[in-house]
């Protein structure tokens, strides 16, 4: 220990020199743009790997925020698309009926609006699957609203609390949805046999229905989803219990394993339609 101290004392001027030299180089790099640029570029070769890794991580973290932004933008665009579509339909009607005096009400509501929402819990523990999202009655959600992702149909809102909602996805045995192939008008029904998270079954299609692998499966008449919302793509012929009907395996458009952001469909005329239809039954 004493020798160590002696050593340090004897050589302390070297320590001082090293300290001052380091300080000088700090000045060189901190205040001379040229040296700093050379230093940084040469350092990049060494630390490039670290930079890449850290940027990977940070971009992954930002992905969530970006996703949210895109989703909100998407909701706005979809709203616009639907209002424009209905506007075009109305224009077509007025053009064919030749009524020039008819002026569309510009304050008219569009039928569908979209509420962006985030998945907070995915319960795919087996058969009784459900999804929890972070929007509830506070945000105007009600049971029986449709839920879609960027790619396609997700499911239907089942229960609503103030801040959360539970969605029954396609991959739940309780889920039924009327569906059809894109190039056909015959409709069948989507259900799930519990085998694979990525595949559902499109059943009750007439036997003569022609299909090709990759055909798009879309919603048909539904109180919940807009017409022609993508559900998935036909992958193969499935097992069927009834000889009069075909069943197709449908690869779902929504990837439930990586589901993060969803849109809840708010159908402005849902109550009206339901009331009208129920009045007949009464």
């Amino acid at each position, binding site marked *: 220990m004493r020798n160590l101290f002696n050593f340090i004392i004897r050589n302390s*001027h070297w320590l*001082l*020199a090293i300290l001052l*030299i380091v*300080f*000088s180089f700090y*000045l*060189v790099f901190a205040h001379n743009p040229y*040296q700093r640029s*050379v230093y940084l570029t040469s350092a990049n070769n060494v630390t490039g790997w670290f930079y890449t890794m850290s940027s990977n991580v940070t971009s992954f973290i930002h992905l969530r925020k970006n996703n949210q932004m895109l989703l909100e933008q998407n909701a706005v665009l979809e709203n616009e698309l639907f209002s424009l579509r209905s506007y075009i339909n109305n224009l077509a009607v007025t053009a064919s009926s030749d009524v020039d005096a008819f002026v569309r009400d510009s304050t008219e509501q569009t039928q569908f609006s979209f509420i962006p929402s985030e998945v907070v819990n995915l319960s795919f523990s087996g058969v009784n699957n459900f999804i929890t999202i972070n929007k509830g009655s506070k945000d105007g959600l009600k049971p029986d609203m449709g839920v879609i992702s960027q790619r396609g149909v997700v499911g239907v809102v089942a229960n609503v609390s103030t801040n959360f909602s539970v969605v029954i996805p396609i991959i739940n045995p309780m889920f039924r949805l009327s569906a059809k192939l894109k190039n056909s008008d015959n409709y069948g029904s989507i259900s799930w046999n519990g085998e694979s998270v990525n595949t559902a079954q499109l059943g009750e299609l007439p036997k003569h229905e022609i299909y090709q692998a990759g055909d798009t499966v879309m919603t048909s008449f539904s109180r919940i989803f807009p017409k022609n919302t993508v559900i998935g793509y036909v992958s193969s012929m499935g097992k069927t219990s009834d000889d009069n009907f075909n069943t197709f395996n449908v690869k779902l458009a929504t990837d439930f394993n990586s589901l993060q952001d969803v849109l809840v469909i708010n159908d402005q005329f849902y109550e009206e339609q339901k009331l009208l239809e129920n009045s007949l039954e009464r």
Partner: protein
Amino acid sequence: MKIVYLKEVLVFILLILLQVLLLNRINVFGIATPVLYIYFLLKLPIGRNQFFVIISGFLLGLIIDIFLNTPGMNAAATTIMAAFRKPVINLFYDREIYDEYVPGINTAAAPFVRFTIFMVLTHLTLLFFIESFTLFNLLNTVIRIISSSIISILLILALDGLTYRKKAGEQ
């Protein structure tokens, strides 16, 4: 003793002013710039405290840097030079030499010339490499180092020969 220090401070300031106001504006053939201020470090007494040498070397470089707007470059080169001054002196001078001896061309020409050449070359090599900071244009850098060194060495030796005055005690 105090007069010695006062003289050193004066030399310190004079050399800096000379370097900054005059010599750094000289650029012979666009490549060679005389560097005189390290003359201060050459002329310190041999036995001077290393702390003093290093700190004064650092301050010398730093002040030059501040004037020339090149933070750190001269300071780094001069500090390194100051730190290695003692070993270099041991290389060129006899060990028996007394501590108060000031290296000079008039008292011992050959060792002083070698000492000067070594120190100036080292200093300018460091300085120009810190400045260019790359081996990209190596030939150009080497030419600048050598030409600047030649001018600086000549200048220092001339200055040392001219300013020598016999001390009263030596006569």
